């Protein structure tokens, strides 16, 4: 089933896909190298991974036209693993990450994305952009003035070259930046760092390698704490990117298939000596912008990348790091959600707090999974708080029967339970109390025990308590919401609100 895809997903847009795939491949090379450096491995690890992940997700991914490869979000999570245990453990962790993601796909965990609110997504994207930028700083500190000049010139090429008539829109400006800066550096024989200084580049096609780690319990204990966050972050970024591509192209995608696709791609990367990766927001936007829509674009990007790095490795070694830094700063700027800053004032404070706390946690811990967790937690708390305000208790005295009648309206649950209790006047000396719950919803056990408390308190004060409409109120304490998926049932439970 994973191999099935519509013919038009592959061949519906051949010219656009091939051109866009080529542009993407050119931009992927500097990124893959830069992310390998972040992770602390040879550039070839990121390049093999990028080829393998792009190639596999092209075939079995759930979102045609999305670009997946080695990414910064994932690279940041593996830094300490590489430092403490070396490359082989990284490959093993990559394999395990893939397995976890495939399982997540079969358990349809992709649908959990609905808990990740818009503000958390924005926070994630902004944090990612900041992390990519921060990862460039080591290349820009304690260096000669030439490096600054080269980086500034590189950014100038990237953003101004498209305004050149005719060729501006045909040649990818990041490529122009790299070619020109490499040429200048070689011509002037500048003494600055180049890609060749950062480690080995691929000189052959990737070969199948089983990671050289002992298959023991200890190994699992080492890699599992890395694989789980890798799997989570990979799926989060992939599903977010898939949604972005969905929106841009006005089409739909299969999110659970994407989870499985990412998993199998990571298994493939682990076996071919690559690091774990996921979908890339910036590259996917570049792909769509360049006219890529189908699976072919992702596949062309992967294959073209491999061909170039294997045959042009002597040239790629000469690329000055300053050129890569310029490209990565562009990616960082393009990934950042500029709109979220402009609209900071219009958005509700709670949304801003969610977004900023996500960013803060990520930048602090360098772990996007933790940031998303905090963001989702805040979002849930804010939501619970908002909903708890939708509860009120009114009362009338029936003089004939000398009964105090309380009417409870709205949502009673853990967050509003205390306020619910406070609304009853236990000091009033009265013989009969009637509590009308017909228009109340009791969502959980906290609500039920709050009601118990109220009843017991009244009884201690010597009153008789009568409950009206308890069945209606407690019908919301159900965990099988499937029953309530049709309008009539919802009307029964939520009626009157």
């Amino acid at each position, binding site marked *: 089933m994973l191999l099935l895809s519509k013919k*038009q*997903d592959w061949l*519906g*847009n051949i010219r*656009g896909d091939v*051109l*866009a795939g080529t*542009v*993407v491949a*050119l*931009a992927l090379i500097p990124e893959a190298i830069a992310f390998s450096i972040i992770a602390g491995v040879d550039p070839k690890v990121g390049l093999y991974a990028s080829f393998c992940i792009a190639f596999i997700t092209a075939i079995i991914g759930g979102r*045609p036209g999305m670009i997946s490869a080695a990414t910064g979000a994932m690279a940041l999570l593996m830094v300490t693993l590489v430092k403490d245990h070396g490359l082989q453990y990284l490959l093993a962790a990559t394999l395990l990450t893939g397995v976890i993601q495939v399982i997540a796909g079969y358990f349809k965990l992709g649908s959990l994305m609905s808990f990740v609110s818009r503000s958390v997504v924005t926070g994630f994207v902004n944090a990612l952009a900041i992390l990519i930028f921060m990862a460039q700083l080591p290349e820009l500190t304690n260096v000669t003035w030439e490096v600054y000049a080269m980086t500034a010139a590189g950014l100038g090429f*990237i*953003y101004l*070259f*498209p305004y050149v008539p005719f060729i*501006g*829109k*045909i*040649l*990818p*400006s*990041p*490529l122009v930046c790299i070619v020109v800066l490499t040429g200048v550096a070689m011509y002037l024989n500048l003494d600055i760092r180049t890609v060749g200084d950062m480690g080995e580049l691929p000189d052959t096609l990737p070969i199948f390698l089983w990671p050289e780690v002992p298959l023991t319990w200890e190994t699992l204990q080492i890699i599992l704490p890395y694989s789980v966050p890798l799997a989570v972050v990979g799926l989060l970024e992939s599903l977010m990117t898939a949604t*972005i591509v969905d*929106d*841009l*192209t*006005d*089409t739909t995608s299969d999110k659970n298939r994407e989870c499985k696709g990412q998993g199998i791609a990571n298994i493939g990367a682990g076996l071919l000596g690559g690091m774990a990766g996921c979908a890339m*927001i*910036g590259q996917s*936007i*570049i792909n*769509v*912008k*360049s*006219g*890529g*829509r*189908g699976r072919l674009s992702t596949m062309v990007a992967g294959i073209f990348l491999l061909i170039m790095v294997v045959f042009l490795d002597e040239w790629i070694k000469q690329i000055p790091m300053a050129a890569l830094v310029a490209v990565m700063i*562009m*990616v960082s*700027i*393009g*990934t*950042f*959600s*500029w*709109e979220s800053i402009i609209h900071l004032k219009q958005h509700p404070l709670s949304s801003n707090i969610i977004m900023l706390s996500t960013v803060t946690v990520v930048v602090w811990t360098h772990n996007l999974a933790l940031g998303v967790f905090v963001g989702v937690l805040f979002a849930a708390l804010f939501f619970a708080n908002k909903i708890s305000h939708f509860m009120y208790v009114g009362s009338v005295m029936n003089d004939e029967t000398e009964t105090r009648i309380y009417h409870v309206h709205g949502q009673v649950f853990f967050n509003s339970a205390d306020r619910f209790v406070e609304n009853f006047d236990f000091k009033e000396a009265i013989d009969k109390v009637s509590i009308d719950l017909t228009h109340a919803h009791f969502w959980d056990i906290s609500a039920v025990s709050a009601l118990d408390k109220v009843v017991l308190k009244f009884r201690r004060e010597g009153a008789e308590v009568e409950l009206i409409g308890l069945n209606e109120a407690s019908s919301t304490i159900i965990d099988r919401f499937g029953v309530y998926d049709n309008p009539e049932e919802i009307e029964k439970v939520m009626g009157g609100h």
Partner: protein
Amino acid sequence: MNTQKPQVLACIDGAALTEAVCDYASWIAEKTDAPLQLLHTLNHHHETSNSSDLSGNIGLGAQEHLMEEIVTLEQQQSKLKIQHGKVILQAAKTHIEKSETIYPTTTQRHGDLIEAVIDLEANTRVLVLGLRGQVHENADNEIGAKLEAVIRSLHRPILIVNDTFTSPKHIMIAYDGSDAANKAVKMVASSPLYKGLTCHLVCVNNNEETATKLLEQATSKLKSAEDITVISAKLTGKADLALCAYQQEHNIDLTVMGAFSHTRLHDMLLGSFTHKMLVNTKKPLLLLR
């Protein structure tokens, strides 16, 4: 929506057969006293891209800008397509209203033809569409790009139009004793559409006895309907060729038959009878699933 009277749905795209489709559709609408709706679909081809900016860079607000750009572009294109479709629909409407008996309604839907007819199926009595659309307009040996998929996915009678309109006088039922064929006989016997026509009941079977028996059954069913003249005939040989030859010999104006009773896989391996008929026939086919 289901409370409305089921309607004749004519699918038009402005290709050469559009006028014929309109004529046949209004013939059915008039005879059966059903409302006629003209359908035009706007296919957007989301799998292709319209613009390509190969500069490969992304700046501040890249995603928002790109979104804005794509939306503006697609909005313009959609508006043009809708306008174009409206012209086609209006032309067809004017053409039909010349008769001053049928006043069709028109509708435009986004997406695939298949999706559109499935969405409208509940309220459809019969679907009328051309053998070839714009894509294969000049390819004589091919049938329309979406024809088979439409026929397979719909559970309503479908009239496939392949020639200019002539008011049917002689119709033919291709009868082989199958469920679909029996349904065809039943439909012809009960529908007001066929009143006053001559109906040729044709059975292609190399076994003479079986053919006679099958024809006897069907003839008796048909005879129960008033106002239909029944002529039965036995043919031998290859079904599609024999039927087409008979069609020409006896000036048949319309052929009624079951369609695609086998799975796609079966047809892929052995070839589909319906497909052959669609390619070979010179006169409209009314298909029943």
